[in-house]
């Protein structure tokens, strides 16, 4: 089966630094960007990348999106877009949107009254702001919109972009996710619901895991119609072989314990790619470090992959950069492609103690070379899954190769 959609550029801003290389190289070296229970992009200065005016008119999550999109576009199309602007879309997921801006303007409203509230407040905080700004800055005139499905938003955005290209609505789409929600209300609320780690440690699939660590950043991919990319002589970084999504319809925050619907999304993504579990070389897990997710995800992988669940290496990027919420699915798709390109499974950093119920291979310790299984396409490439599951029971799974 020939993939319909290829990836020709990627960009990332993560707590490990600005750029895809910082993400992949530092994660695969086993580094962790978490300090004092948070994973922040501490060295990121928006005015290093854009004018003061552009920086003022966009929230931090949009800053991340603009910079990651700039890296992805520069890599894919160094001489500018090869397609009509009307044929290039932009789809960007976020979990929450411009929460820092909302909180700041709420303070202004309370302290100084309604006349002092900034006219920029809504365009700063709206969930579609990143998609709007990336389209505006880069002159993309195809369909552009935001996607909101909590921690699955980045993967849903990529999936929606794949379908746009398959349907012939666009030749290329800038797709990804962006998040900056390390602000008072979100930090307090995640703690109140017991979702974040009281010890401030992200150790997915470890017996001692006690919650996720909040992170921030963005991941962006340039997706192109495979035939058109080939016709212009592009050398893709990887392919999107399949995508599927499902819903638990179970609980506002807790995953369905058996992982039934997550398993269905995994199986559907594989069948969308025309692959069998035996073809998989790697799984980039959602792996949040919460007691519930890591258990139900393990169940889902076993249900969907059968015996192969025990064979395939599974690691979680969140062990290095925390949970980027609506950006996670996109950043992890980028990380998955880089892992496949290098033929390496980066480790689940900090995994030490086995939970008797979680008996898969979570790549403890160090990065490890991937064992090549052949992906059924006969093209000699490695194949992996990237799982994303969001509050609200949203499951989105990408099947990638490189």
């Amino acid at each position, binding site marked *: 089966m020939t993939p319909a959609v290829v990836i020709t550029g990627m960009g990332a801003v993560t707590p490990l630094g600005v750029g895809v290389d910082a993400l992949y190289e530092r994660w695969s070296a086993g580094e962790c960007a978490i300090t004092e229970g948070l994973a922040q992009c501490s060295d990121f200065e928006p005015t290093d990348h854009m*004018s*003061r*005016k*552009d*920086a*003022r*008119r966009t929230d931090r999550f949009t800053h991340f999106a603009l910079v990651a999109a700039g890296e992805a576009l520069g890599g894919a199309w160094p001489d500018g877009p090869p397609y009509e602007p009307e044929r290039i879309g932009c789809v960007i997921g976020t979990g929450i949107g411009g929460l820092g801006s909302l909180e700041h303007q709420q303070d202004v409203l309370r302290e100084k009254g309604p*006349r*002092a509230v*900034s*006219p*920029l407040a809504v*365009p700063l905080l709206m969930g579609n702001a990143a998609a709007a700004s990336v389209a505006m800055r880069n002159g993309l005139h195809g369909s552009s919109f935001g996607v909101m499905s909590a921690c699955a938003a980045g993967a849903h955005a990529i999936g929606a972009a794949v379908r746009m290209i398959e349907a012939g609505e666009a030749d290329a789409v800038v797709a990804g996710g962006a998040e900056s929600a390390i602000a008072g209300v979100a930090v307090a609320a995640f703690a109140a619901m017991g979702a974040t780690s009281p010890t401030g440690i992200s150790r997915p699939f470890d017996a001692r895991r006690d919650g996720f660590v909040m992170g921030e950043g963005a991941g962006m991919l340039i997706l192109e119609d495979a035939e058109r990319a080939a016709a212009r002589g592009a050398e893709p970084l990887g392919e999107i072989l399949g995508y599927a999504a499902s819903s638990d319809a179970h609980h506002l925050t807790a995953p369905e314990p058996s992982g039934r619907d997550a398993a269905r999304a995994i199986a559907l993504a594989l069948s969308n790619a025309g692959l069998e579990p035996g073809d998989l070389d790697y799984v980039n897990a959602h792996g949040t470090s919460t007691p519930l997710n890591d258990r139900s995800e393990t169940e889902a992988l076993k249900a969907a992959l059968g015996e192969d669940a025990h064979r395939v290496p599974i690691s979680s990027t969140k062990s290095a950069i925390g949970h980027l919420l609506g950006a996670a699915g996109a950043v992890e798709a980028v990380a998955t492609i880089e892992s496949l390109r290098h033929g390496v499974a980066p480790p689940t950093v900090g995994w030490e103690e086995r939970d008797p119920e979680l008996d898969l291979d979570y790549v403890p310790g160090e990065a490890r070379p991937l064992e090549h299984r052949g992906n059924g396409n006969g093209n000699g490439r490695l194949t992996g899954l990237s799982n994303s599951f969001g509050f609200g029971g949203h499951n989105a799974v990408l099947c990638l190769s490189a």
Partner: protein
Amino acid sequence: MPAQATTESVEQVIIDGLTELGAEGEVARDSTFEQLDVDSLDLVELAQIIEDEFGVELQGEDVKDLTNVGQVIDLVVARSQ
């Protein structure tokens, strides 16, 4: 207490304000909004700064036909008398 609105003080606040808002290039009395890349959203923010400093309320209607910095300065000085 709002500040005393002299031509000099208004000019200073408006030029500093537009600079802070990220106007393109140096802001002078005869700079046009087009040159400075100042749009309607910037003008609303500028009006908030002016109200804060001098207690002069400017509505959208008041500024929609203005095209340069000097016109805003003159309007604020006139309104504060």
